[in-house]
């Protein structure tokens, strides 16, 4: 403390400089608006209502997963098993439906499995105090293996005569595809939870400085458990939308780069990997940016190698921006204990 005091005058202008820097969400929002305008003017068929609905529908699953990942990254954690939680329990549930289990029970089974995985992840991170990165990476492999054990199929099909099961993915309300509405509802609920409830504020406090949060009386361990269970719930919801959209569940997606797309939309939108920063709006903006790029690439028929290059550069740019806006220092670089 004594060492700090001579530096205090210097700290004030630095703080002012930080305040004048634009927020990452705002930058990304501006870039997105610029891109949408540019594509709208130059690309035939981009700025039509059907295309924009298409664009939003194509990012809704990513967005729902992104909300969960956003939550956990705000708390300074990460969950690399999220895509596996989406696929594994649902693959098992669909196999059970094929074997004759009533659809309602199968959905509850998937829900139960997802929650159990969330609890296990939470216990490993909160009580065993293993790093979230490795716990969830390992959990992803375990889920993949176990799901294959119970449901050994590359792709499991949903029954085609179950409108209730497929509604969230395939339905339309007033012409709007339901996945968009699910994403919107989940985003609003998450925003209200994070900004209006004390538990939501605690999550920010934990991400900002876990030690300080604990010293101020927040029960960190139950909080961490809750966060991992919430991620699992969102993954379950995303799975329900996925099944409605494709009529099936493919375990192979857990082995694909999809989980990195989820991290991508979260980080681009300004949810900093050092925790405590960003909001639901960041996820929405990040998703819309990625969705806009993918949609425009498809219209322009750019091949997926080039798409990957651009996606990688966008991610790098976001991380550099994050580093510039939130430089790591002694205080924020310390991982929570």
């Amino acid at each position, binding site marked *: 403390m004594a060492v700090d005091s001579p530096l205090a005058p210097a700290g004030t202008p630095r703080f002012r400089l930080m305040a004048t820097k634009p927020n990452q969400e705002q930058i990304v929002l501006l870039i997105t608006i610029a891109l949408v305008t540019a594509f709208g003017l130059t690309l035939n068929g981009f700025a039509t209502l059907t295309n924009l609905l298409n664009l939003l529908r194509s990012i809704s699953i990513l967005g729902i997963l992104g909300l969960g990942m956003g939550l956990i990254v705000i708390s300074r954690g990460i969950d690399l098993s999220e895509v596996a939680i989406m696929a594994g329990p649902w693959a098992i549930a669909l196999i059970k439906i094929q074997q004759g289990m009533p659809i309602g029970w199968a959905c509850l089974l998937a829900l139960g499995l997802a929650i159990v995985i969330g609890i296990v992840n939470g216990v490993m991170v909160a009580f065993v105090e293993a790093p979230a990165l490795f716990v969830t990476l390992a959990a992803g492999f375990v889920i993949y293996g176990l799901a294959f054990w119970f449901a050994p199929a590359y792709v499991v099909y949903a029954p085609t005569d179950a409108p209730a099961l497929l509604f969230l993915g395939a339905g339309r309300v007033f012409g709007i595809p339901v996945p968009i509405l699910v994403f919107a509802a989940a985003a609003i609920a998450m925003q209200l939870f994070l900004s209006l409830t004390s538990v939501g504020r605690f999550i920010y406090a934990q991400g900002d400085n876990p030690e300080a949060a604990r010293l101020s009386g927040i029960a960190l361990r139950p909080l961490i458990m809750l966060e991992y269970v919430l991620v699992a719930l969102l993954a379950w919801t995303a799975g329900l939308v996925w099944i409605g959209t494709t009529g099936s569940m493919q*375990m192979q997606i857990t082995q694909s780069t999809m989980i990195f797309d989820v991290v991508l939309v979260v980080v681009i939108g300004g949810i900093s990997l050092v925790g405590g920063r960003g909001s639901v709006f960041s996820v929405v903006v990040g998703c819309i940016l990625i969705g806009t790029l993918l949609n425009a690439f498809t219209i322009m028929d750019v091949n997926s190698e080039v798409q990957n290059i651009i996606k990688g550069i966008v991610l790098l740019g976001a991380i550099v921006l994050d580093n510039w806006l939130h430089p790591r220092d002694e205080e924020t670089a310390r991982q929570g204990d």
Partner: protein
Amino acid sequence: MIIGRMWTAAVIGLALAVPPLMVSAQEEGGTKTARELRSAYDKALQGKTIAFLPIALNVPLMDEWTRVVKEEAEWRGMKFVVRDPNNNPSAMQQALTALVDQKPDVLIVQNPSVTLLMKELKRAESQGTYVVQINMSSNYKSSAFVGADWHEVGKILAQDVVKQCGTGSGKSGKVQIVQGELAAAASVDQVGGVMEVLNKDPAIKVVSNQAANWDANTALNITATVIQQHPDLCASIGFWGIMESGAAQAIRNAGKINDVKVHASGEGSQLDCDQVNQGNFYKFLSYKATEQGHDLMMAAQTLLESGEKPGARNLEYYTQPLWIDKTNANGGNCYALPKK
């Protein structure tokens, strides 16, 4: 009529009387030859080990190969070993090294790339193991290759698309291609064959040529945009049934499933036939996994019976692709998925 009936009665009577006579005739000489042949056959095959290394199990295609080869090998008194590297190239290399060290008599390998497993395959043949490559070959020419000729599959797909959408069809000529992975040989060779044919017809325009990485959801997202950009799309070509079902769903969602001719190639399981029968696929080009499984066993058997040095010859067993549409998407043309 009466004479006709008498003839029938006579033929039936003879048919009933002849078998006992034939049996006695066989015991004289026929069965001896048959037994000698069978014992030579058994000597060549019985107790031999046949090892199988696919890219992954639990995929309809590889599961069917495994089922057929295992069943046929066991009937011949052969030992069957299978390893599942689960899409992991380094696990596959390790599994192959371990398998080669066990010196099986025949080794069936599905190559993920043309170079990855080359060295080990060469080593296997030099130590006396026959190597049979299935569907995806490597740069090493081993004793046998069984599988589809991807270039040909692509050409056959495109020829039908040209018939539906090309000059004189009165259609827009707009075609979408949904590739698997850009780097996968199955995708590269099929797209080569497709383009070779499509480029010859000036009426055909490829409006989208994208990779969906074998994933139905990605195919759906791409196709949803393509069909809305090009409502007069004439055909969609996809390089795998399960992936292309996503594209078909996007076209169905857009209300165009009766206008757009959805073409796909694949192994021909019940899943593919369901898509044809539900009207999602206009036509499906099957390379018949069941038959390929049988061909694998034929290749292994031929090599073992020949007794030649591994690598002395390169036998080829190409699979004849079969068009499946609503008229024949049933019975033996669609193999059932194994019960889980």
